[in-house]
């Protein structure tokens, strides 16, 4: 079995909620540059191995106690992959918007927002699900399997600790 790590899922949830909010704001006010910014933050976060907008949680929401940590034993790699995949779709959406392909661009932006909502509120990470299937197919670079007793892509059950 893979060695699981303690992951604060609150940081990921806040990241997803901020992505949803910024995407909706970008759509309502018709600001394609904002989708480019979201894409850049997501991709940079993936490269750094942390949630792109996680710094807002780490520097503001967690210290002030507005959001409590939710530490679970989980694999970090599928979440990183999921954010990277979302970032690529966001980048595609931003490029489409800048190229005048409005329907395609906003469609991709809404898709990312919808999948982020599914993860934040439903506990199901579609990108993680894809990662685990790629592991199952033996694709090189994909090696992690879901935590025991957890459906691929679902948030692991239970909390490891209340550490802050």
């Amino acid at each position, binding site marked *: 079995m893979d060695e699981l790590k303690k992951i604060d899922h609150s940081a990921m949830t806040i990241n997803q909620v901020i992505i949803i909010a910024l995407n*909706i704001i970008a*759509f*309502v*006010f*018709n600001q394609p540059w904002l989708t480019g910014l979201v894409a850049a933050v997501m991709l940079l976060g993936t490269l750094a191995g942390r949630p792109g907008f996680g710094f807002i949680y780490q520097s503001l929401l967690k210290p002030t106690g507005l959001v409590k940590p939710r530490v679970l034993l989980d694999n970090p790699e599928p979440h990183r992959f999921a954010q990277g995949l979302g970032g690529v779709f966001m980048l595609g959406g931003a490029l489409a918007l800048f190229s005048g392909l409005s329907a395609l661009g906003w469609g991709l932006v*809404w898709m990312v927002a*919808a999948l982020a*909502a599914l993860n934040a*509120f*439903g*506990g*199901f990470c579609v990108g993680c699900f894809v990662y685990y299937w790629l592991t199952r197919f033996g694709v090189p670079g994909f090696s992690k399997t879901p935590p025991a*007793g957890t*459906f691929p892509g*679902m*948030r692991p*059950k*239970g*909390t*490891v*600790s*209340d550490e802050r």
Partner: protein
Amino acid sequence: MSAEVLERLFIAAAISSLAVAAYLLLNRYALQRASSKVNRLPSYQSGLPAIVYFTIPTCAPCKTVQRPAIERMKASYGKWFQVIEVDASQQPEIAQEWGVLTVPTTFVIDANGQPRYVNQGIATAKKLIQQLEIEDYSI
């Protein structure tokens, strides 16, 4: 506010409403799915409302919030309902059958054995009492 922004705001609201509707439908589906499984629960007594409480031993909010809430309810209204606790780590097949996504999860079953509510995450004692339709909300 320009007409274009209003139009986009309306579209955003419509899409968001669709998402909420889909979530509510999923919850309804979970309740429907559970209805055929109530009688198969170990220690279920028909004719008495029930709370089916899914937990696991390492779940901190279950220990610190959900269990104390249920214990308080049992102390005050224990004769009006039954609590069926399912350890999802010991009985993952039951958790899967019931479509449990997280712990704690509580299902509220009425006296006719029909699942009425599902609470994914913590449910307060007051909320559970209201869902069980016990009239005194003094907890």
